[in-house]
């Protein structure tokens, strides 16, 4: 049995490494993914373009504007003289945030009423708008606090300028203390690369043999379906593990993502995940008769798997039905494992539920593939 399987494995390796296109496919797309996700996907918002229309022109209004200019979040680029100009800048998309300080801003405050300030956010990108308005809110809240302190001080109260709010929040971001998107993205990319490579290689290698007729030639030999399947999957499991090593090394050395956990746990999680992707690859190969069909079928699964993984869009924000759907998505578990191993240094104690879930789903998927495969080739 092993002799036959070994011959298939050797043949697959010769073919993969002799094929220029395949060698390219194994190295370049994973790097492109790593670089784009590492550099481009960035939820950190900085230097948001701001325009100010200051009708008030008072000490108070200038102090408010100073608050905006003095943070990294905002870059006050325009000081305009009319409402029309302000709205024009928003329309053109030159700015994301517009501040309109009303003429009676300071007067009202001195009278002990609330000063009026209009904040306009360009919500073309709703995610970014949300973050920008939250930042603006924080700046304004600080300003409020300052004004409150001053008022109290002016009234000569015993607090002597110390108002002290009931709750003072100072958030600490654990595991990624500077909230660098890249640090969460790179482990996610590892998971995506493994999915892409193992799924496509497995599906295509079987379907290609169908196309050229060698599968039929193999099926007239005494080989058993299980031997053929093992021979067809083991090489791609090994190649996928090499991909993980390549992307992990680049993530650590180039992007300086901290690796706090153990390689063994990462290996274990990857193996559990590979049951799923290789199983799916085999399953796809049983329903496709050309490589093109296999590619299409593969893509059909790739996009939903990534969208429902929680890497880019938080699962908590999804409709309830889709939240349940993510439990069936092995990539969701695998990303928790890779991020956990990298950023938290999580071990089996923490990650066993995910690894178990992937193993169970994987055995199911592989079982389905084996059943289909046997029927298909018999």
């Amino acid at each position: 049995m092993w002799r036959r399987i070994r011959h298939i494995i050797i043949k697959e390796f010769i073919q993969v490494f002799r094929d220029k296109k395949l060698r390219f496919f194994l190295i370049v797309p994973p790097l492109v993914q790593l670089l784009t996700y590492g550099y481009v996907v960035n939820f950190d918002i900085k230097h948001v373009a701001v325009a100010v229309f200051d009708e008030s022109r008072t000490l108070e209004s200038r102090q408010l504007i100073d608050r905006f200019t003095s943070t990294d979040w905002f870059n006050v680029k325009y000081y305009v003289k009319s409402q029309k100009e302000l709205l024009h800048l928003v329309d053109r998309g030159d700015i994301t945030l517009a501040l309109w300080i009303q003429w009676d801003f300071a007067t009202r405050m001195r009278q002990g009423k609330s000063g009026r300030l209009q904040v306009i956010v360009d919500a073309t990108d709703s995610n970014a708008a949300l973050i920008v308005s939250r930042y603006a809110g924080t700046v304004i809240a600080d300003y409020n606090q300052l004004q409150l302190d001053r008022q109290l001080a002016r009234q000569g109260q015993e607090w002597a300028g110390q108002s002290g709010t009931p709750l003072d929040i100072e958030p600490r971001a654990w595991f990624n203390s500077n909230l660098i998107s890249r640090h969460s993205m790179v482990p996610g990319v590892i998971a995506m690369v493994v999915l892409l490579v193992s799924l496509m290689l497995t599906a295509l290698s079987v379907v290609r043999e169908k196309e050229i007729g060698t599968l039929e030639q193999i099926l007239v030999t005494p080989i058993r379906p299980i031997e053929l399947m093992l021979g067809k999957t083991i090489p791609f499991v090994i190649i996928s593990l090499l991909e993980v090593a390549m992307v992990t090394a680049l993530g650590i050395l180039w992007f300086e993502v901290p690796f706090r956990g153990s390689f063994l746990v990462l290996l274990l999680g990857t193996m559990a995940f590979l049951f799923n992707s290789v199983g799916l690859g085999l399953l796809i190969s049983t329903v496709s008769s050309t490589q093109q069909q296999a590619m299409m079928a593969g893509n059909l699964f790739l996009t939903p798997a990534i969208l429902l993984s929680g890497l880019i869009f938080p699962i908590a924000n999804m409709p309830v039905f889709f939240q349940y759907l993510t439990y069936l998505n092995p990539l969701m578990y695998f990303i928790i494992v890779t991020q956990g191993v990298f950023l938290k240094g999580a071990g089996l104690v923490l990650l066993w539920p995910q690894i178990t879930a992937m193993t169970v789903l994987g055995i199911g998927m592989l079982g389905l593939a084996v059943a289909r495969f046997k029927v298909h080739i018999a």
Partner: protein
Amino acid sequence: MTTEKAIVVKNLSRHFGDFKAVDDISFEVHRGEIFGFLGPNGAGKSTTIRMLNGLLLPTSGEGRVGGFDIIRENARIKNHIGYMSQRFSLYEDLTAEENLTFFGGVYGLDPARLTGRITEVLILVGLEDRRHDLTRTLPLGLKQRLALASAIIHEPSILFLDEATSGVDPISRRNFWDLIYAMAQEGRTILVTTHYMEEAEFCDRLVLIYQGRIIAQGTPSELKGEVKETILALYPGNLDGALDLIKKLPQVAEAAVFGDGLHIATTRPEETEPAIQETLTAHHIACGRIERVRPSLEDAFISLVQRAEGKEAVSYQQSAIS
């Protein structure tokens, strides 16, 4: 391998939906025989072979290959048979030797035997000096021989060759048949499918298969003896024009292009000869001499098909002869 018969097939059928690809066929192949399956594309030749080598299960009927039942002992048959399809299923990106190593390995040959066999078959098919060449770089005739080499790497006693010479030039085809003869001489049984008439002549025995049914079987000369009509050969000046005219004659049962002349089947040669001369002369086509010839296998095939199918077969024969 206890039986004298290498292959026994009884009432074998395979249907795909309503389509009867193979319809109730029976035949026997003796050991050491070159047995031919002759018929046009889509006649059911490949479907039959696929049932015999375990790639396809029959809808009904039974069969034994090398003494094993094709339904129940499907897996045991595979060690004893070799299969070569018209697609020359090889890995183009592997060398000749790597292809043989792979197929030999999948057949489970142990390393020592594998090494020995690879050299043996490479010498047999005359490829030992190209063993390290990529298969992609081999001309079609050599690919065909390499495909044969991988089909016999495990020394099968029965060899199935499904349109194994299609697309190959005549010299390569002749060399290939020399190899097949040599293997039959060693006692191997060979079942070939073909639609080349001259290849059918090389077979010890033949079945004619048409629309899923066997319409005749026997040695090539027995099949030729089946022809009841007299065959007239003539070489007119204008082949196509003459063919159209002659087909319209009531005395002519069948007419077809044969080489650079025409073959005409008729039951009334005495009446037909003058009729042909008359109509060709009337249309200013040089007639030349009309000879009575022994029927060729092709004549037999056309005649037998026509007998089986009535006049329906007329349209077929035009495409069968090329």
